[in-house]
């Protein structure tokens, strides 16, 4: 509360010059391994600063350099240029190899989010083991989304900023092949006609909701 007031008060004073703001954003982004939101930049910089504009300049400045300014969801980070990965063998962290089930589950969550467990099971045609979901949650690549407003109010899953950061995606809309899949109707939650043996049965009412949720997430 009091910060809000401060902000209004202080914005009457002059903000630092843009070049200086750019330096500040640069320093903050360099200092941390995690992506930083514009909001947080704003809260750490002198009042009246416009980190969003500073980021435009900074991003341009690092274009083609050994490290780049990248957007991750609604946050920003500095990452080494992917073509220099070969120099970093020493820094490479052995990532746990994901099982086929985990990779598929992750892809389904990313492309169909927000998606319920029942929907994941319907798509894969097999039940999703608790361990698979737990592993993805633990890696912080997925998290719980809003509950679906259908009977039972099932939880949904969505991908996280860490997921976007890990795969170098600006946002979920940039997922490879997303447009094509949508055009082909493969992201629709098509209710099965009649009596198909169905693991995710009972969740078909959710169809409209899913569409809505998807739109929310994937559209500007």
């Amino acid at each position, binding site marked *: 509360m009091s910060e809000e007031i401060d902000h209004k008060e202080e914005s009457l004073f002059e903000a630092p010059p843009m070049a200086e703001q750019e330096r500040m954003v640069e320093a903050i982004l360099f200092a941390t391994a995690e992506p930083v939101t514009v909001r947080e930049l704003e809260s750490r910089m002198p009042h009246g600063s416009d980190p969003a504009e500073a980021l435009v300049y900074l991003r341009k400045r690092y274009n083609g350099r050994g490290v780049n300014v990248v957007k991750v969801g609604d946050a920003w980070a500095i990452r080494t240029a992917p073509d220099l990965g070969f120099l970093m063998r020493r820094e490479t*962290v052995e990532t746990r190899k994901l099982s086929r089930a985990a990779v598929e589950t992750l*892809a389904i969550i990313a492309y169909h989010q927000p998606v319920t467990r029942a929907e994941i099971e319907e798509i894969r045609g*097999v039940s999703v083991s608790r361990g698979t979901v737990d592993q993805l949650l633990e890696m912080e690549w997925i998290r719980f989304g809003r509950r679906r407003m259908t009977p039972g109010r099932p939880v949904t899953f969505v991908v996280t900023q860490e997921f976007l950061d890990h795969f170098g995606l600006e946002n979920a809309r940039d997922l490879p092949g997303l447009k094509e899949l949508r055009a082909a109707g493969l992201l629709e939650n098509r209710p099965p006609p009649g009596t198909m043996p169905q693991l995710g049965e009972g969740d078909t009412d959710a169809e409209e909701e899913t569409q809505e949720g998807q739109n929310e997430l994937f559209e500007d």
Partner: protein
Amino acid sequence: MSEDDFDQIGPMESVAERMAAEALIVDVDGFEGPLDLLLTLGRTQKVDLRTISVLELAQQYLAFVERAKQLRLELAADYLVMAAWLAFLKSRLLLPPDPTEEGPSGEELAAHLAFQLERLQSMRDVAAKLMARDQLGREFFSRGIPEDVTQVRKITYTATLLDLMQGYARIRTKDEFRPYVMDRDAIFTLENALERMRGLIGFAGTWTDISTYLPDGFTTDPARRRSATASTFAASLELAKEGKVELRQSELYAPIELRRKD
């Protein structure tokens, strides 16, 4: 799914194909459920998934389950459920539609199965694309020496003019209490009340609301009224204790009434 995938698989009758079928059975544990098995079987059809022959696929699946039974392989329940459903689908597709029968047609069911297979395949394809992307900590890296942000908690103290004045009043009041001198402007003390009531109860032969004993000038100002009410009440209790008056109250919060005791 690209054409290449299908090109590698020969005609149904080839030795390689039969060996593959054997391998399917032995590897049944390796399948991620019946849809996965159907997808694998579907690859033996030299077609795009969108034009897959569901009838043929159903037959392949049923043949597979049959073969597994011969080999006395334990198949998980969902594989058998799928087999039963595919048998049903097969009969629907083969028999002319019965106009009296309700529910979706065989074609509709087949189309949905084809959709499910295509959707699963599409998820597999994008999963592979996703995993083939440059990844953090593999192709690109974050800062190796993060400079920690130190959390500084800054506490600012504040007070209002009211706090200040109340604080001062508190001290000065305390001062006044020390010599036991009170500002009696708004105070009607117990002694005052006793004195007043002793003089008045002689007239209280009938039940009278004690509030009528409040002195003049103590009935309008809330602070004075409060003080007078309290001391009058306390004085009434004192007089009752002395046996001079009786008190009664008909119910909670009702007026307290007083009568001289004869």
